[in-house]
């Protein structure tokens, strides 16, 4: 079961604006990116996120799984999450 750690100094607004207070860096998330990020902040596991997104969005599991991996890689490369 995969879960992720999000830095405490990180704030995300309802419009998808993301601020990392520790470094001063800012980011933008698209709507689904923001939804996922809030789930990550809430401590959801990968499996839980997958389930929620498939209920919320019109997407096939295979497509989402692939895009989710890419998204997680991007967040990791920006040091916005760490895998537990």
């Amino acid at each position, binding site marked *: 079961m995969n879960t992720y750690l999000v830095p405490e100094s990180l704030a995300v607004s309802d419009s998808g604006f993301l601020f990392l207070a520790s470094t001063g860096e800012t*980011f*933008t*998330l698209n709507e*689904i*990116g923001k939804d996922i990020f809030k789930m990550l902040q809430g401590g959801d596991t990968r499996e839980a996120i997958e389930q929620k997104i498939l*209920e919320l969005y*019109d997407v096939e599991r295979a497509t*989402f799984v692939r895009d989710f991996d890419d998204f997680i890689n991007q967040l990791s490369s920006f040091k916005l999450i760490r895998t537990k």
Partner: protein
Amino acid sequence: MAEKKTYERPVVTKHQSGIMNKFGSGPSTSVRDNIDGVLIKDLAGKFGSPLFVLSEKTIRQNQRNAYRVFKNRYPRVQFAWSYKTNYLDAVCSVFHQEGSWAEVVSEFEYRKARALGIPGEHIIFNGPEKSIEALRTAIREGAMIHIDHFDELYHIVELTDTETLKARVAIRVNMDVGVYPLWDRFGFNYENGEAWQAIKRIVANPRLSLIGLHTHIGTYMMSAEAYRVAASKLAGLAKSMHDEFSITLDYIDVGGGFASQNTLIGQYLPAEEVVPSLEQYADAIASGLFQLSIKPEDLPTLILETGRALIDNAGYLITTVIANKRLSTGRRAIIVDAGVNLMFTSFWYKHKVQPAQQPSVHTEDAVIYGPLCMNIDVLRDGIVLPTLKQGDRLVLNHVGAYNMTQWMQFITMRPNVVMVMEDGTVELIRKAETLEYLAQQEVLPARLKEKKSR
């Protein structure tokens, strides 16, 4: 149950500061879902992807506009369609219907023009390689032969002598117009007197009729002023011929080379802001020619061999996303089904790329790769694009010049080419290649057909 939301890939974009120039990043995500009213998805659905699409309407508009611009500034104007820029029969025929002659640079192109019904006297035969047989045909059919070098002149002299023919000729003149590199490999040089020497030799031969002067100063010329210099130097030669030999030229041909609206790789500002307008080119050429102070009725016809500027924006390439991936740097890469073997101009232009479906507002810096298993297969680098998924279509703009002649059958086949006609119908104008089509040209020696014996 509530309706589900439309899906797009989750994206996070890091804000960069300090790298924007004062012009910003510019709009890059406008959608093109149709070409002259025909939907991209219908075109690709019916004719496949990748697909080259040409707009009959745009070609005709370009040609009519160019004619008007030059005719407003100079009394006698004739266009000759540059075959090498795009010699698909349908394309050439549209230009010919608009009144253009044919400008060819090989025996193959010459025969193509003849097959399309263009009479010899409306064909300009340029280029450094004209076989004896090609010259014989061109002389007999009354084509305008633009002599490139002395060896060619001697061939023509020999042919006209032995076969008692008369040839209509012009010389190609190269010159310094203040733009570098100097294009001095074609024709006779103006500054060192070689051009004048060639003129004297031709004039002395009663079987040769010197009817014109020709130059072609370069390609994608970003200075209109260079054309003023070229036109005035040719006008100077024409004046000397008039004064010394009482020859009145039928025409002065200033060639082509006008830049299109494509931005060059490495160019800082977009083409629309730095490329001269057709009006500026026309002003420069006309003012150069008017230095030829002769009676208005004796003014030579101005011939233009404009290629790129008349066809580039009439051509589109529809391509389909095969895959998205991340490079080691985290940068996004998009793989599409059209490679540089079809898009030769990707090596020097930053083609405008538009998604064919409504994009998200979120964009990322990306590089677009073709499908070839070759490192050089880069269609577009450094482009900001919205999120795309497998199967999405992209449209490359301004691809009408040179791609459909310089393309290669390499790894993949060359695809269908269609033309959207003025009435909105779509015609297939070149069929996609097949393995059978390629195999026709190959010969497998019988001994190699045998199965391995040991």
